[in-house]
């Protein structure tokens, strides 16, 4: 059982961006992702209903190069204009080939 370090990229954004972000991360080379429904507050105050839209959290496990590409694309396409937060952490996986 050999554990290999990979990057976990987490993106929190308004749900309207779901399809776009997914196609972005795929283009950068991500082979999979996991989405959950969340709520949150930041510069923008909390959304209370479907009228105001919801947030989603997208997590994708990728190699470092891919992670950097994703950060670059997300920051250039969405930062400033959209409600979005993005961060990186290091995790360890088995079967690293699954994520390449």
């Amino acid at each position: 059982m050999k554990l290999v370090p990979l990057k976990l990229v987490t993106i929190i954004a308004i749900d309207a961006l779901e399809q776009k972000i997914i196609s972005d991360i795929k283009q950068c080379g991500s082979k999979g992702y996991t989405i959950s429904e969340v709520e949150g507050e930041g510069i923008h105050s909390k959304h209370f209903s479907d009228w105001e839209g919801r947030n989603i959290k997208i997590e994708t496990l990728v190699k470092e190069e891919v992670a950097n590409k994703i950060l670059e694309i997300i920051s250039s396409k969405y930062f400033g204009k959209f409600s979005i937060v993005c961060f990186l952490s290091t995790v360890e996986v088995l079967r690293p080939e699954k994520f390449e």
Partner: protein
Amino acid sequence: MLEILLSSLSSPIVLAFVLGVFATLIKSDLKFPDSLYQSLTIYLLFAIGIKGGVKLSGSSFSEVYKISIAAIFMSCMIPVWAYLILRFLAKFDSINSAAMAAHFGSVSVVTFSQTSVYLEQKGIVSEGFMPAMLAIMEVPAIMIAIFIARKYSDSKGESGSKIMHELITGKGSLLLTGGLIIGLITGKKGFEQVSPFFEVPFKGILCLFLLEVGLVTGRRLSDLRKVGFKLIFFGILIPVLNGLLGSMLATWAGLGVGGTTLFAVLCASASYIAAPAAIRMALPEANPGYYLTASLAIAFPFNVTLGIPLYLNFSEWLHHLN
């Protein structure tokens, strides 16, 4: 005027809205689960569509074509003048003006339903094909307002054709139009099977939905103070203007008093199902503090309390003239 207000306020449907607003104001923890809101929306849109289709199946082309032209005309023009008023009279910036224009130009399913209930209570019949007008008027205004925003600001949301696709395939249009077509095909006989679900409990379900609308509106009321008197003023002026123009057009198109009132309400009402979703995508820089507040916390309560009786009275007066 107080009398009119009080009479509207004796409807359980309007009172449910008031209760919702009140619950938010006293910071109640009452909250509709998301999926209840979504389920009620699906029900209401589909039920209105299918009922309208059944009634439309009994109408002839000659009855319908004039008012359809009027509906398309108003859908295209309301966002234009709403934009001009908001941008140059009220001095909002162009993106927020366009976002609000989209909401005023599109229609409110709930206001429409409440008007039907109101007319029914008064014993005023109305043309059965009016829900078809609702379906026609939902989308075009939003498209035009987005087009205006793109032209007169440097907003860069989704591409035009993408938004067009999203609006036309959006659940609002789809359920309304799909329901209409199903109603048209099955007609009265087929509808009988499903009317105990789509017709009989409709008003009660609308009542429950308005409780939720009230909850959301209550949260918007705090924005009212921030945005100030200007938004309130124009948030009432524009609906009244559209409602009166709508009355005139519908009278010209040959509708009866009931249908004229419904058409006036379609023109006067502001969208809060289709438009917010579309604007969020297309004009992400627009501030919901303006467009949601104008639509939910100003236009909607005004229309439901004072607006409907006003448009009805005006329609009656116009028909009296003829």
